[in-house]
């Protein structure tokens, strides 16, 4: 279970997060929605320790992430980055097997490659892709390789940062389906940030809306359409007029 209490972060004069309170039960899939620049990525990075919050507490299974062994904590996480963040200098299989080949439980090269090919197959990529470099792949394929890398070590918690941004609607649907299948199949806890409402409906058990540095609304995805929050309604229906300023 992931729990955030009063998490705040400021960059210079820009107060991005003003005191986030949020909890995500184990095995559930939460999607955080919100406009561009509202601090969704910063929130994920705070949980992972990539950005240090100015105030507040982040607990993973009741343990404060600031006081937990970082390597042990990160070993439980997998993350799919917005642009894939694949290592250009490595072949696809080496990207997927990156974590498997390091640390105390490092696998031999041949076994790591086998696992990588198996994970690539799981995300719908053929074994021939394994020996290509990331630059030789299309955007959708890169995203799938990123997904394979995120699940390679079978993490308990997976984060997805804008998984469908920049993809065509069909490929977006494929990625959404894959995310949902993988999360259910692995029993993982998932947190996704996106502003793609199709993704929200395909991936989420619960939804939280971030606006102006605070959680504006949170609840089950089934309750999203009936909610009476005007900010949420403007966002999910993509209306130009409403309480959220269109020019930020």
């Amino acid at each position, binding site marked *: 279970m992931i729990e955030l209490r009063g998490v705040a972060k400021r960059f210079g004069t820009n107060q991005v997060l003003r005191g986030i309170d949020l909890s995500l039960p184990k095995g559930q899939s939460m999607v955080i929605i919100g406009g561009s620049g509202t601090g969704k990525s910063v929130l994920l990075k705070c949980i992972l320790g*990539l950005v240090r919050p100015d105030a507040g507490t982040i607990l993973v299974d009741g343990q404060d992430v600031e006081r937990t062994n970082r390597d042990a904590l*990160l070993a439980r996480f997998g993350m799919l*980055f917005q642009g894939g*963040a*694949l290592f250009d200098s490595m072949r696809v299989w080496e990207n997927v097997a990156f974590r498997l080949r390091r640390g105390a439980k490092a696998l031999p090269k041949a076994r790591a490659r086998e696992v990588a090919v198996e994970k690539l197959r799981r995300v719908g990529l053929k074994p021939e892709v394994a020996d290509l470099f990331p630059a030789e792949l299309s955007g959708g394929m890169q995203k799938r390789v990123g997904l394979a890398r995120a699940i390679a070590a079978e993490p308990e918690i997976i984060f997805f940062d804008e998984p469908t941004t920049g993809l065509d609607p069909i490929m977006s649907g494929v990625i959404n389906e894959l995310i949902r299948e993988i999360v259910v199949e692995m029993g993982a806890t998932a947190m996704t940030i996106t502003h793609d409402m199709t993704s929200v409906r395909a991936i989420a058990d619960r939804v939280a809306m971030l606006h102006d540095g605070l959680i504006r609304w949170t609840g089950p995805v089934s309750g999203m359409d009936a909610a009476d929050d005007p900010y949420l309604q403007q966002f999910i229906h993509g209306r130009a007029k409403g309480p959220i300023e269109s020019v930020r």
Partner: protein
Amino acid sequence: MIANLLAAIGRPVIAVLAACGRVTLFALEVLSHLLRPPFYLREFGHAVMQIGWNSLPVVAMTALFTGGALALQIYAGGSRFNAESVVPSIVAIGMARELGPVLGGLMVAARVASSIAAEIGTMKVTEQVDALVTLSTNPLKYLVVPRLLAATLVVPVLVAVGDSIGIMGGWLVGISRLQFNSAVYLKNTVDFLEFWDIGSGLVKGAAFGFIVALMGCHFGLNSGRGAQGVGTATKSAVVGASVLILATNYLLTGVFFSS
């Protein structure tokens, strides 16, 4: 008016001091990781090839032409005092003590500091550095330590090769254009060159290698967003490394030879 003037002078001074502080803290942090596992031997080997082997042609060409030009200049200057015979020894001492390490260091700064800053800067802006962290890999250990170690070890080798080729450049010009006897030229070179002339240049090379990798990695990891951020990081790495090389060269020359 005066306050504005003082503020205008103070701001860049404070900015430079802050940058020096940041680079120093970065260097100390990297050094604290130098002897602690894990060690990434494959990345070290790759860095040795990138920094050492791939820099050989540019360092060799620079040294060859510098040695030749040095011979011509010393011959022209020496002829004013009827001291043309000093050409071989001065070319050798000049190349080993100063021009080999400094020009080699500057060429490596141009080639390697820029490439390290651009590569790591691009990794930073495309979130590859963040990805390393989420994959339980410390970017300082994985990206910085191998490059720093490789540069510190291979730049002295480049300097040694540059010294030899520079002296050969002087010899080629000496025997082809300045009517020196080949055997006499080589004998004068060997007779007057002392071990510390070469040793001091190699120590300088190690210091310059450290500076080049440090500046490339520091500016790369602190690159701003987008293409402009990476461009600025690359420029700052080359300028910073070049200025630090020249300043360190002055300091080391003072320490080695001021007696």
